[in-house]
């Protein structure tokens, strides 16, 4: 999903920065408040951040014969919300831009928008909707992280199509034609990887529920009754 350094012309890289900056400021503010009020969540925050680092480092081969990577931002989004996920996404993308030449400084706004904002937002909304519908907890985690991952890559395709519409001028038809080409590269490759990310995220949540369910209840991620059901305690 990285748009490489220099591959977004003016005015697109500035536009994505303009969208990104208010979100990241809100995210930093929210993160500061959370850490001040609830210091006990710090280890869990570290786990969520580490999970993004681990998953986005794993490049996996896909059915299309090209490689791409999961993002791992779904877990952070479900526990801490999309704004804080944007902060974690920024840290990971900054590391990759500076030390790996993956992504770039000018494309940072656009890349965080797809991986740190849209992906987590989709994961968060799917999670809330799924829990409201009282579906199985792990199935909801799976769906939320998988769709969040996939949404990230659809967003990247959209950003590139906006900057590079077919015919050189931004028309709706030109956008759609380019979007189809970029989506063929990103979105299809990403489908199996999104499924993998969903599966691994569900597993991580199982362990967190097992050892530290009270912190998830306190963060209002799940209700106590759901935890009891998951642990098989009948009351």
């Amino acid at each position, binding site marked *: 999903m990285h*748009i490489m350094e220099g591959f977004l012309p003016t005015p697109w890289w500035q536009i994505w920065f303009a969208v990104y900056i208010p979100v990241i400021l809100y995210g930093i503010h929210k993160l500061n408040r959370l850490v001040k009020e609830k210091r006990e969540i710090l280890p869990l925050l570290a786990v969520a951040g580490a999970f993004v680092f*681990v998953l986005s480092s794993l490049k996996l*081969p896909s*059915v299309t014969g*090209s490689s791409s990577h999961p993002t791992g931002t779904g877990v952070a989004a479900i526990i801490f919300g999309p704004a804080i996920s944007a902060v974690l996404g920024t840290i990971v993308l900054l590391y990759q831009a500076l030390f790996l030449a993956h992504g770039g400084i000018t494309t940072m706004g656009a890349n965080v928008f797809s991986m740190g904002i849209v992906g987590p937002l989709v994961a968060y909304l799917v999670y809330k909707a799924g829990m409201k519908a009282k579906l199985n907890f792990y199935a909801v985690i799976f769906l939320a992280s998988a769709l969040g991952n996939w949404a990230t890559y659809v967003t990247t395709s959209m950003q*590139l199509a906006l900057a590079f519409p077919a015919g050189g001028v931004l028309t709706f038809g030109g956008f759609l034609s380019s979007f189809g080409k970029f989506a063929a590269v990103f979105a299809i490759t990403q489908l199996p990887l999104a499924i993998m990310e969903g*599966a691994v995220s569900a597993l991580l949540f199982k362990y967190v529920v097992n050892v*530290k369910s009270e912190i998830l209840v306190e963060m209002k991620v799940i209700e106590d009754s759901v935890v009891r059901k998951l642990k098989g305690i009948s009351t």
Partner: protein
Amino acid sequence: MSRKLELIVLAIVLIFALQFFYTSSTTNANYGGTDEKAEGVINDITGGTYKPISEPIWKPPSTEIESLLFALPAAIGAGIIGYVLGYYRAKKKCENELAYKGKSKSEGDSQSL
């Protein structure tokens, strides 16, 4: 503790691995990164006229160094996840044991009264 979820995840991982072995042995796919493929699409659309507006400040000098810089945060991250989950697990076990001891002691007290 039920291992149902672990088995489902294992099945998904195995299907993914089989997919890879099948695709890589039946086609001569080179498994390049999608980021570079997108660059190809950009060249296609613009007819190769697009010049990047900037270059990366620093590039890893070789793919070996690149894999080191990928593996390093992943290794540290995996360590953090394992440490925190292990810490929580042991803490919970310890608390449960203390609670159990406390409970049996107070029951003993009530019997003696």
